[in-house]
């Protein structure tokens, strides 16, 4: 059976070049970058080279990059650190309703400390209207955090427009670019953002490797208090192998991003075009135009996501879902609900996200295996029976 991996948003494979670049730092080059001796200097040079590579990926200066252990940590650092850093100016933050839980729950933590927050709605495609962000700003607003792209529906947000509007009002802008960085070109100057989160496991780097860009001169409070690492803004001995892996993955992404996207985009479009054609009552979620090149997502009506994932897995196909049952919390995706989908439809959400290199045969395997799976689950579904009865067939 052909193994088909369509779960980029969960994890990407480690590129062989990345693994080889990391290997010395897992073996003989084990020094602590803060040590004065040669072993320490060797590690420090590797960390600083990686910092330069990550900076180059997003068009920033090297000293504007802070390494963290995950995208979640970087988002916590940004939202809490920036808001608390500006609280003398005001205590109001604005985020979209479809942010990752690491942003939404950081905002909740701020609220417990007396901050006020506004959730900006999205349209049916998951797009944030910059004008809505503008309306949410008050004289008290110190931070706006809107994701660059959403991992569940693939929609790319108009960050440059949002940032321009905030900048004019003197409000800081953070963007969670975990789903976008390394897969679409990003430049922090062109975007006009003050902070940006990226994670290596979304562009063929190792897990546990991530970074926050913070524009020079912007005040941010540390999340992890400790020593002098990362300019005193993130304590803890540097995870040198992960940082080296992140740097290498960033360098390769900057070089190969276009060719990877060019290879994956037609496969993505084939999934988005063909599945609704082959199965009735399938809705593409997210934008068809402003969309991540490797990302296809849809909702299958009358069935629930987990059953589809289990049957796909039995067919050797790995995908993911935003349905209630696959999340531990038994709740439908807040992203799809914010986009105006009803609970029943949101439960049938699926994400097929392609890793490079995927082949046409991978998509063939999906297109062949999937319709009978849906058919089988619909035959079991009381919602489908009720629908057929209503339709009179």
């Amino acid at each position: 059976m052909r193994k088909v991996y369509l779960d980029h948003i969960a994890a990407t494979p480690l590129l062989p070049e990345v693994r080889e670049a990391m290997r010395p730092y897992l073996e003989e080059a084990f020094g602590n970058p803060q040590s004065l001796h040669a072993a320490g200097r060797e590690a420090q040079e590797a960390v600083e080279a990686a910092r330069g590579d990550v900076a180059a990926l997003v068009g920033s200066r090297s000293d504007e990059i802070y390494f963290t252990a995950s995208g979640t940590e970087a988002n916590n650092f940004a939202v809490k650190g920036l808001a608390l850093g500006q609280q003398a100016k005001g205590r109001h933050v604005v985020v979209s309703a479809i942010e990752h839980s690491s942003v939404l729950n950081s905002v909740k933590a701020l609220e417990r400390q007396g901050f006020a927050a506004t959730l900006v709605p999205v349209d049916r495609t998951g797009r944030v209207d910059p004008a809505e962000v503008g309306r949410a700003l008050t004289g008290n607003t110190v931070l706006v955090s809107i994701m660059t792209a959403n991992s569940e529906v693939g929609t790319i947000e108009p960050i440059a427009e949002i940032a321009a509007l905030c900048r004019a009002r003197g409000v800081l802008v953070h963007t969670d670019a975990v789903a976008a960085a390394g897969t679409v070109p990003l430049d922090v100057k062109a975007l006009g953002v003050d902070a940006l989160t990226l994670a290596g496991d979304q562009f063929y780097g190792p897990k546990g490797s991530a970074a926050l860009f913070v524009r020079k001169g912007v005040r941010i409070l540390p999340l992890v208090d400790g020593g002098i690492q990362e300019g005193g803004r993130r304590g803890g001995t540097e995870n040198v192998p992960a940082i080296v892996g992140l740097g290498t993955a960033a360098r390769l992404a900057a070089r190969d991003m276009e060719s990877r996207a060019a290879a994956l985009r037609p496969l993505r479009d084939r999934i988005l075009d063909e599945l609704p054609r082959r199965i009735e009552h399938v809705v593409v979620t997210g934008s068809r135009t402003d969309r991540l090149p490797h990302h296809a997502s849809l909702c299958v009506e009358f069935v629930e996501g987990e059953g589809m994932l289990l049957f796909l897995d039995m067919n050797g196909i790995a995908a993911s879902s935003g349905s209630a049952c696959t999340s531990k919390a038994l709740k439908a995706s807040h992203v799809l609900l914010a986009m105006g989908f009803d609970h029943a439809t949101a439960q049938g959400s699926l994400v097929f996200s392609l890793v490079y290199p995927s082949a046409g045969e991978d998509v063939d395997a999906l297109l062949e295996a999937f319709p009978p799976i849906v058919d089988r689950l619909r035959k079991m579904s009381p919602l489908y029976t009720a629908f057929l009865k209503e339709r009179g067939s």
Partner: protein
Amino acid sequence: MYSDKVMDHFANPRNVGVLADADGVGQVGNPVCGDMMTFYIKVDGGRLADVKFQTFGCGAAIAVSSMVSEMAKGKTIDEAMAITNDLVAEELGGLPKNKMHCSNLGADALHEAIKNYKDRQAGVVPAAKPEADLHEHDGCACPYCDSALEEQDKTFCRACRVEFEECPTCGGITKKGDKTCIHCGAPLGAKG
């Protein structure tokens, strides 16, 4: 994550379908919580001569329905009423903690179908079942530890021992005594 037995009942569910001439029909759950089950029974000589079901839900929900149907088939009404959620989960070789919710629905749906049969026998006209409220707020699982909550448990999570109150703004269940709602961030307690 799932036992072999759960996977078997999920992939090859027994007794899927609709009984057009059912003697009793029971429906529980709603898509908000992710699961919905309909059970159909045919009664002959005091025994469940046939049982069929349809389920919208996760792998565990489908496996639970299948197992319940198998356990109930051929049983007397009283024996079928004695099938409990725990027995179903046990027969399946256990379920993940956050899926116990599904096993609760399985036996409930069967019992609803039996109740419906008894009502019909007694000539009770079944009250029009209110449409499942698709906009009803969560309440399926504890928002703090994700353990499934029983219907009667909406004020307290037995797993993490948190007491709840309903948020006056969004209607979600949130920790009693907190200053703001865990779902919508609205202030609790003092209104306005």
